[in-house]
């Protein structure tokens, strides 16, 4: 066998997919040919590198999505009554009465994601992000950022992308550290998303955006209004966690992974105190 013949069968040799007699002929050649031996070593290196790659797990919600698709096929024939706000109103009313207790006890009511906004697919994706955020905020963040056009920015430079200085450009209250700031173009809006850590290591995401997005983002998850500092804040009860949204100046702030109303009050107060314009 000459080099060319050996090279042609090199993959099969490497993969153990070659007859024993050819194999021993190739081994003889490889024993005295540095070039073919180097090629074989290259195959091995690529193999080692590839096998070392790790794959994140698929989102836990994937089966539910598939089931939904499977269900939709027969359902497409019968006109299914869509769930409306009206049908949810009694439950929301009951929740509003108990939300103070719920906030304190951390007993949350699971509610599935139902797209209410203009971007149903986005609502499902955002739901996956929220769901993932509770379990592993950093992993959820990576998957979320991969879905949309996003850019890691210096908070002071975010103005170049969104036309305003986000609140986090002025820093954060004591006890919080900024992990990253991204400008994210989502189907509903472009927002500035800041990932923050508390001193205990837990994670909080702060979104700043132009319009109120609680329905678009959180579907029909139960909401209730509560006064925080001097503002009316909308609290959204998610499966095992809490989000809060309020109007801050001409924009809206939404925080995901908030601890309680006290934390929101503290953040609102801090943003109010630190709203002096920054130089452009």
């Amino acid at each position, binding site marked *: 066998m000459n080099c060319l013949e050996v*090279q*042609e*069968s*090199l*993959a*099969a040799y490497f*993969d153990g*997919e070659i007859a024993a007699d050819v194999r021993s002929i190739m081994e003889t050649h490889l024993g005295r040919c540095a070039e073919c031996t180097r090629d074989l*070593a*290259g*195959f091995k*290196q*690529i*193999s080692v*590198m*590839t*096998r*070392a*790659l*790790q*794959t*994140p*797990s*698929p*989102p836990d919600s*994937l*089966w539910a*999505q*598939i*089931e939904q*698709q*499977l269900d939709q096929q027969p359902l497409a024939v019968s006109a299914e009554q869509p769930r409306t706000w009206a049908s949810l109103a009694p439950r929301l009313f009951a929740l509003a009465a108990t939300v103070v207790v719920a906030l304190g006890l951390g007993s949350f009511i699971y509610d599935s994601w139902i797209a209410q906004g203009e971007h149903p697919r986005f609502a499902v994706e955002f739901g*996956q992000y929220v769901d993932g955020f509770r379990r592993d905020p*950093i*992993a959820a*963040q*990576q*998957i979320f*950022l*991969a*879905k949309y056009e*996003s*850019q*890691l920015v210096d908070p002071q430079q975010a103005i170049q992308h969104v036309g305003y200085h986000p609140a986090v450009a002025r820093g954060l209250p004591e006890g919080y550290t900024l*992990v*990253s700031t*991204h400008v994210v173009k989502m189907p509903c809006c472009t927002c500035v998303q800041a*990932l923050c850590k508390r001193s205990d290591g837990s994670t909080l995401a702060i979104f700043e955006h132009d319009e109120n997005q609680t329905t678009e983002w959180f579907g029909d998850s139960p909401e209730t209004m509560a006064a925080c500092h001097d503002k009316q804040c909308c609290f959204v009860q998610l499966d095992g966690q809490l989000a809060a949204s309020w109007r801050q100046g001409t924009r809206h702030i939404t925080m995901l992974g908030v601890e309680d109303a006290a934390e929101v009050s503290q953040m609102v107060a801090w943003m109010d105190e630190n709203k002096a314009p920054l130089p452009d």
Partner: protein
Amino acid sequence: MVDAAVLAGCRSCERGAQQRLYELSHRQVYRLMVRMVGLQDATDVTQQVFLQVFRKIDQFAGHSKFETWLYRLASNEALQHLRKGRRWKFQPLTQEPVSRHASEEDRNENKELIERALSKIDPELRAIFVLREIEGLTYREIAEAIEIPEGTVGSRLNRARRELQQHLADLGWEP
């Protein structure tokens, strides 16, 4: 292992059997999809694969292993997805912005290089290479999954590996 009972259940559209099949095989399908179409589309394409599996389960004749048939549907779906051109901007995993904390896991820059090199080779070669190196299929199984003659699997793997080496070298990789 997807056994005869699970398959029979899927043929009669039993939800429990469908869920069992999904549980047994979704990781490998998703893993292939992440490498084939990139992280941002992997979930969507995986979903499509399983909808196809349940729709076409009657076509699985049992001549080959179920896994090989599943890989065939999955590879087809991935290649179709890429051909549709919806995602020309295939981005390897680690090119995406990562937070400081995640970077601890991505210390190994070889990973990034191989992902980038993989994203540059022809999708069919990529499928063959991934089925061999990550999924561990034999040449016969690859031939069935990709629907190519078994005798051509080796030469395509030769090509895939040489092209990967070339891209790695272009990216500045030093062995």
